[in-house]
């Protein structure tokens, strides 16, 4: 099944990605942002905060935004 992934980390990225059914939010995060801590990101499904074990549904919109973004001058 397909979900829309919006990754606001670094260069940014927004596209539909194929996932297997019964993928939890946490699992999805691990696949897509390997080696990173979920606590360092705002994860929203269909624009709302969700529990880590929530299962993703076909057509869900998942956005991942880092909590620590460094500004400049």
């Amino acid at each position, binding site marked *: 099944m397909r979900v829309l992934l919006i990754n*606001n980390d*670094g260069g*940014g990225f*927004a596209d539909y990605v194929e996932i297997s059914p019964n993928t939890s939010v946490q699992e999805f995060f691990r696949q897509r942002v390997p080696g990173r801590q979920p606590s360092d990101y705002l994860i929203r499904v269909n*624009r709302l905060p969700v529990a880590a074990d929530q299962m993703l549904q076909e057509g869900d919109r998942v956005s991942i935004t880092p909590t620590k*973004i*460094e*500004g*400049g001058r």
Partner: protein
Amino acid sequence: MTVTHSRAQRAAAEIYKILANGPDYERVPPLPETYWNACQRLLRMQEKARQRGWGAARNRVERRLLQVVADCSSHLHTLQEKLIETIRQRRLLNEQAIADDLRALSAEFDRVRIDLKHRSIAVETEPIVLQDIEFGRFRVVLNWISIPLYRAYRVIALAPHPASSKPDVTHPHVQEEALCEGDGQQAIRDALHQGRILDFFQLVRQILENYNPHNPYVRLEDWEACECHDCSDLIRDEGNRFRCASCEEDLCDACTIYCHDCGECFCADHSTRCPCCNKTYCCDCLAVCQQCHGKFCKECLDEQTCPQCRRATDEAEDAVDDFPAYDADGVETEELQTAHAAAAV
């Protein structure tokens, strides 16, 4: 404050319309036709030179051709990059998705306001505290009409606590209401151009909630430090901070000038040296010599005359005293006659 359905819908329709046109810089540059035509002409010349056995001409033409081919391909390369970038960015949300984003703002932010008249969306952050320094809440105002342009949003401190040295710096990464996006620049640009308004506001908030010690407008440890008016150094220690008694600007220890008369501190503009004793004074404590009109300290002036002018006067008087003026018969002495003759010259 929740965003009403109809307001979100109307704003989304406008935002969609603006973004669908795309920003000007997204226009793909024209094909490098001129270079292409030049290549073709040079190829014909090269062939002609080859057929006629003109070795030198052929070399010249080929070198020129190489240059034009390089120019042509560099243009094509730029065009290719531009297209990749444009395609990447143009994943524009549809009108409904933009409206959903706008409605979802209320779940993320305290005060959300969509102003249809001014075509702006404003949200407020929580109070921002970085390393125990309080910066208060910020209002982020996005003018959607400006999204295709350079600076579409402002970051306004609601209870400003600016850096002492720079009143327009209200956050280590905000100057004159503009956020320096740093690492978030590309993500913010993409979010705006794709109509992901919720992501945009989240990204801005996350930058405001963080501090990058390597590249701030003013470092947090210097937040309360003021700038020396004369040398622009930051005065970090309160004990090294002085103030010009005349213009009230802050001065560092090294730039503070002490007046030897009134005992106050002054900046370089409001102090000077007495040309006679070379001590420092403020401009008000010097007085004018009545003869040369130069400015001197009161200690160096005697009866409103500077030492040099006094010396000149004394010497002139002494010269007159030295001459025996008249002889016993009341006739001018020879010396006096000579002196008068010299004076006349």
